[in-house]
């Protein structure tokens, strides 16, 4: 037990991190009246109606569906388009390559906030408001820089001899890309996909502007709207918040390695 001080520190920090989450989970099992008298104890009785109400509401599942559809579509487009570009950046030498590549890397500096006004005007004139494409396409575009950088780095590690052999065997550039490079790049593709999914899932500003109608609301919009609607019903809001966090945390527990590996690699190589 000579590590006691270290463990004490970790416990305190652990409570700071997990406390809010556990408080939310447990409070969801209380009624709001019970919550005001019994804030930190275990629920007595355990009230499940908050959670069952969330899980049986059409709005919640519609938001989950909407968030999922948008995240998957964003990722497929962003990763597909980036893989093609990263292939060219990694394995062809041509005039102007570094200029074009730098243009993409500078995209890392461009936050949504800078482009959001003209983007909104653009989407409005193309009638893409209240349309999932109005969120999917801009998100995919903003995901390109990081995805291209990570994939280019990976594609460069694949030996040139492999490509020469494939071309001697009569493989076209696209054939090499599709049949050899992409299957070999599966770990890198997994990493960038996980990053794109999480970014899309958590996006707030763009869906907030694009979706006026509740029809396509994503989970972050839904949570915020629910808080506004049931302002005083604390326990019920907490149940909604907890239910809304579950998919992200579940995804994290499955894809933890790709997520952390990708973020650290993206940060140090970007």
């Amino acid at each position, binding site marked *: 037990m000579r590590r006691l001080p270290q463990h004490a520190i970790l416990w305190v920090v652990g409570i700071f991190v997990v406390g809010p989450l556990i408080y939310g989970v447990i409070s969801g099992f209380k009624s709001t009246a019970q919550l005001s008298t019994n804030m930190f104890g275990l629920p007595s009785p355990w009230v499940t109606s908050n959670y069952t109400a969330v899980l049986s509401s059409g709005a919640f599942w519609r938001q989950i569906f909407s968030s999922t559809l948008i995240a998957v579509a964003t990722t497929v487009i962003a990763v597909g388009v980036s893989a093609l570009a990263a292939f060219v950046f990694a394995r062809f030498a041509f005039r102007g390559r570094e200029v074009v590549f730098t243009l993409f890397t500078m995209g890392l*500096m461009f936050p949504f*906030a800078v482009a959001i006004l003209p983007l909104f005007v653009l989407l409005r004139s193309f009638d893409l408001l209240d349309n999932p494409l109005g969120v999917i396409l801009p998100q995919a575009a903003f995901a390109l820089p990081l995805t291209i950088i990570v994939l280019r780095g990976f594609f460069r590690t694949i030996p040139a001899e492999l490509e020469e052999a494939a071309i001697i065997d009569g493989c076209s550039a696209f054939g090499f890309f599709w049949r050899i490079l992409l299957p070999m790049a599966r770990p890198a593709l997994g990493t960038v996909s996980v990053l794109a999914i999480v970014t899309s899932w958590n996006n707030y500003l763009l869906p907030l502007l694009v979706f006026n109608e509740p029809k396509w609301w994503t989970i972050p919009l839904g949570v915020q709207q629910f808080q506004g609607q049931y302002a005083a019903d604390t326990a019920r809001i907490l149940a909604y918040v907890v239910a809304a966090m579950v998919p992200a945390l579940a995804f994290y527990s499955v894809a933890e390695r790709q997520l952390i590996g990708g973020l650290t690699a993206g940060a140090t190589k970007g």
Partner: protein
Amino acid sequence: MTLAATRPVDVAAASAPTPSRGRRRLRTWATIVSFLLPALVLFSSLVLVPIGVALYLSLFKWGGFGAPTDFVGLGNFTRMFKDSVFLGDLWRGFLLILFSVGIQLPFALAMAVLLNQKLRGRAIYRLLFFAPYVLSEAITGVLFSMLLQPGSGPADHLLGSVGLESLGGKWFADGSTVLVTIFVVITWKYFGFHMMLYLAGLQGIPTEILEAASIDGAGAWQRFRHVTLPLLGPTIRISVFLSVIGAIQLFDLVWVITRGGPTHASETMAVTMFQFGFKRFEVGYASAISVAILGISLVFALIYQRFVMRRDLEGAVTNMRARR
């Protein structure tokens, strides 16, 4: 990152005039163009063009409908630097950066050093500390606005039960405490991310070096100060960079919790931009603010990369010419 190793098809070098070579060269260019085209189209139409349009609109007084006709030159920018809210945004952004770099990052580093030792359960601690990072800022904001309800929320009850009620009670509701409270939420959400960066960096430090220092009689603090810290330099510089950029561009969390209030006390540049652009329909002025956000980010990035990260990064923005 050497270019020489991966150069199977060198277009620039293929200059012999034989027809078959010319055709092959043409084919290579066709491949390059067709592979790059989707990314270029997507990126230019939805990232570059909007940013260009923002630059253009920032020169007009424009309400958002019809064509912008009321050209005001740099009027929006001169207005910005007389606007006490915008100047306040700069000051608050500066404070957030100061807090992040001075408190959040050292804290994350301390946790990383702690969890780099052989402690029981360290894998679980790492997993837990990082978890808030995957939650959306909007949901995090809703959760904390419930936890920190002034007077009636659990945080105040907890402080009250240990006799520290004077510490709480205001949180997001008071101009003098709101920014610090937002910073606490930022720390809750992001320190795990920086900790993971540092852990990745620490794992790259060979134990032999630390052992050697130890044999030479260096104590734990000296080993940290003179071996670990310098070797962690590149990671720390990246982490500071990301933290500063994040602070400059902060929006979701603030918008969900306070909308910038009370009376602008937590407003950031992005929130001001949003207010003018989408609530007050002063799109020209809002565009000027978004141009300022971009300008500040870029200037910071260029200066930082040139003077601070120069040794770590080959590539990125500044030394592209050196690279060709």
